[in-house]
């Protein structure tokens, strides 16, 4: 049961129940849809960028606790940050949920998702919002799939 407790930490259950920034931004400078065909999770990420800074970041959709909490935590982590920080933070986050080493520094609250690494089938849930965010910033309009 310890792996499960590690996966479903209080913070994750809380963000699943009460996702932060769970709304539409209209107008948004960027938005994109993410879709996980394996489990049907579907969410849309909205971003408002001005002068290279993420002024606002939000999401909406339907997903499991891991994808919902991950999206919610992502919006909190990146709101008000320079767009240039997205790539390096995603790289670190990806390491966090896929590799066994120590938690990379600088992830803050996102670190609660470390438990995902013990559940390879759930990595796609944890990264869904991030893939959508990247697609939105790249102005790719077709939904991104995690498969």
């Amino acid at each position, binding site marked *: 049961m310890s792996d499960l407790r590690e*996966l*479903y930490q209080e913070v994750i259950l809380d963000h699943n129940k009460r996702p932060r920034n769970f709304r539409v931004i209209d107008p948004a400078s960027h938005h994109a849809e993410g879709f996980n065909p394996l489990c*049907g999770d579907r969410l849309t990420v909205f971003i408002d960028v001005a002068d290279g800074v993420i002024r606002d970041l939000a999401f909406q959709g339907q997903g499991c606790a891991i994808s919902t909490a991950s999206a919610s935590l992502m919006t909190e982590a990146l709101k008000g940050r320079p767009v240039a920080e997205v790539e390096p933070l995603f790289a670190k986050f990806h390491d966090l949920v896929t590799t066994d080493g120590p938690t990379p520094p600088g992830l803050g609250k996102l670190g609660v998702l470390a438990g995902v690494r013990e559940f390879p089938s759930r990595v796609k849930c944890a990264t869904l919002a991030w893939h959508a965010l990247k697609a939105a910033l790249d102005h790719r309009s077709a939904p991104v799939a995690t498969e």
Partner: protein
Amino acid sequence: MSAPIVTPVPAAAFDVEAVRAQFPVLAQQIRGKHLVYLDSGASAQKPEVVVQAVADCYRGYYSNIHRGVHALSERSTTAFERAREQVARFVNAPSPREIVFLRSTTEAINLVANSFLEPQLGPDDEILVTEMEHHSNIVPWQLVADRYGAKVVAAPVTDRGELDLDGLTRLISGRTKLVAVTHVSNVLGTINPIADIVRLAHAQGVPVLVDGAQGVPHLAVDVQALGCDFYAFSAHKVYGPSGVGALWARAELLAAMPPYQGGGGMIRRVSFSGTTFADPPERFEAGTPDVAGVIGFGAAVEWTRALGLDAIAAHEHELTQYAMARLADIPGLRLIGTAADKAGVVSFVMDGVHPHDIGTILDGEGVAVRVGHHCAQPLMERFAVPATARASFGVYNTSADVDALAAALDKVRHWFG
């Protein structure tokens, strides 16, 4: 765990412990808990006799078939053709020559789409399926339909998950070239009234293909009594190896169908001025088949037949009734698929918990279920759910497995409050 409100399945004539003992894979622990395998709908486990039949072939007499004059090739060919007889008997086909060995249900349906349907398809023609089909009984039809401006239409499903026969009847017209329907829904467990559907379709001169992937593990299948024209099924869902399946089709239909794939084994004579093809079933069996897999398929259907499909159906029926009653008592749980005539498949959703999270927490308790859209996205849309959790039963499941499922679902409730 709360006390069961319903009486568990009584230890009847069906000796489930003796059956379980034949499945080596079941005797293991997952994350420190006894494995409770409730995912036979995705793929069934294999009894020792099937594992042994495959191993015996490789250890004792394996060779390519229909090609050699040497002893091993003759022995392999004999065993392969014996499997054809066994599989034919299993679905009561009039002749083993009406059994085509393929990779799967999926390949069988693609074969019918390409060799039977395509040559007669024109603009505005229709293939009638149902809302409860697996993607493998939708997409192959769409692929050929798209090439000819034809279309795939779907008969409606009721809120209980039963096929709306009036709705289906209304959709059969002069444009309908084929009705393709599942015997048993892999999500709802619904057993469709195939003989009735066949009568309705045949009355209008429309042939019927039955997707039997979930039919053969749960029901005694008699293709002659069903009256259908094609019956497609996979070995792996009926306790046989993965990667092999079969198509049963009426001899006269097979005889008129052109080859699907070209290659070795399916020809009579090849020359650059023209090639002539073997008779069915070899015409549709291009290339070296999964020899040992087919032999294992034969062993699996023999084993299943010896156990008795009626006894299996009765055992699974009791389990399903028990499971539905236990699950209905869990707060916030909703069953998807409550047809009167239902095989051992129980789908459900829970308020406030995504099926994916249900699956992970159940796995932590050693309980293996499938979560997701079950390759039936149109059906998910029909029931307005993104996904479901599904427990599916096999010959080896017990009422204790259902109790373990219910207890694990209590944990889910506890975690997700």
